[in-house]
């Protein structure tokens, strides 16, 4: 149905456009917000792919939590616009040129891979019913239980690590209680 395709192109356009802007923006705050925009576009694509659960998760966690974190940090550091360090300009310039080339090469490779991949064959297998949240939840807590627990531990570790890394100065002037 064409409507679906139109939506796809709409969201895709949002995603790509905002992402491009994210990369070229010089003001970090704007980058963050644009990235949120791209997330929302992706969420739309997820809905098109009949994964509303992931779509919402995407918005809650990515847009709602992680990006707030970024925004805070940006505001906290009152991030300056692209400070250019003269000293390391040269090799940094060289590496960046190489990097750009490599990125293009990678894109080319991906395109090539697509042209000769067999995925075209199954491109219309997409008439399977969407998965309900309970289905997904049950699989997560049964087959993927271990991964789930591991992730939770990972998050705990990350929390501790982040606090020790960023909150050190607080404890130094011992005002750690509101850290």
């Amino acid at each position, binding site marked *: 149905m064409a409507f679906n395709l139109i939506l796809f192109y709409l969201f895709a356009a949002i995603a790509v456009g905002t992402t491009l802007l994210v990369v070229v923006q010089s003001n970090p*705050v704007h980058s963050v917000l644009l990235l949120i925009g791209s997330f929302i576009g992706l969420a739309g694509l997820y809905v098109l792919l009949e994964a*509303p659960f992931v779509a919402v998760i995407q*918005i809650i966690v990515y847009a*709602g*939590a992680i990006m707030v974190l970024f925004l805070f940090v940006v505001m906290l550091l009152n991030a300056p616009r692209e400070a250019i360090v003269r000293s390391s300009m040269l090799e940094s310039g060289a590496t960046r040129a190489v990097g750009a080339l490599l990125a293009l090469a990678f894109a080319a490779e991906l395109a090539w891979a697509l042209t000769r991949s067999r995925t075209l064959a199954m491109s219309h297998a997409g008439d399977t019913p969407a998965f309900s*949240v309970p289905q997904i939840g049950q699989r997560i807590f049964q087959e993927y239980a271990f991964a789930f627990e591991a992730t939770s531990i990972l998050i705990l570790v990350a929390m501790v690590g982040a606090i020790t890394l960023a909150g050190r100065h607080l404890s130094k002037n011992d005002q750690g209680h509101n850290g």
Partner: protein
Amino acid sequence: MLNPVVIAQLAILLFVFVMLLSSAAGMVYMERKVAARIQQRMGPTLVGPYGLLQPLADIIKLAMKEDVRPKAADPILFALAPIISAACAFTAFAVVPFGAETTFFGLLDQPVPLQVADVNVAILWVFAVTSMGVYGIVLAGWSSNSKYSLLGALRSSAQMISYELSYGMALAAVLVLSGTMSIRGIVEAQSGGLLDVSHWFLWLQPVGFFIFMTAGVAETNRAPFDFPEAEQELVAGYHTEYSSMSFAMFFLAEYINMVTVSAIATSLYLGGWNGPFLPEWLGWIWFLAKVGFLLFFYVWMRWTLPRYRYDQLMAFGWKFLLPLSVVNLLVTAAGVLYFGL
């Protein structure tokens, strides 16, 4: 393409929009009146009978004002912030049903739900939109480049993030009970029973209701948790620099958020449109009544309770409310497992 059902849905959409706007206006009036009564005053009386037109006057006044923008402000974001707030406030309401399915007395060949969109992850949707609402405030505070605004913004965002957790936990408990994420489903799960009342989740989730309302008040930055605009310390918090319509938008957003929270609370705990004595197609009256009561409760609380201290607020949120909500969730889950509720 343009069949009656679609028309009906568009109509509903329009209705919700208007209703929200007017409810905001109504809130302004009620707030003033109740405040006045609580303080032994008359409140607005001049404009219209009983000062009923006072909100209108306010809006006109606001619209007439000049829209000032600080020079140092970030133009785009400064303009964007209020829009985000308002938009989030509206979108959150989209998934809230305010009445049973109806065919409008056979006007339609298939019944339509009295709600904008019946998403099957509605709760998560509400949650997501609320979390997006933070941006409006943060950006407002940051972009207007003034210390009061920034402080207010940081405060309120920190506050909202902290209380979102308890908020979500309380929601989760209800999910466990009803087994669905669609708010309509939840409401239907509360129908029936004695006088259509005995099945409300309020009876099963008193603690949850308490947590939800407290967190909701914090989420909407209302007294006694109204730090973002603690006028004694921060002038007006994140919207200090705003004026005219852009200020009106924040204003609007705040009231609509209150309405949304009350509406969700109604649907989750107070059985939505379920109520005694009224035929189902009039259920929306019950819904409005309950929401209205909760809104009154908001105002009542604002003028009764003093404002907390900020660290008290944080301590309360993290050290009391969150653990309590976790326990509540665990107990609920255990109960469901045990009694198979």
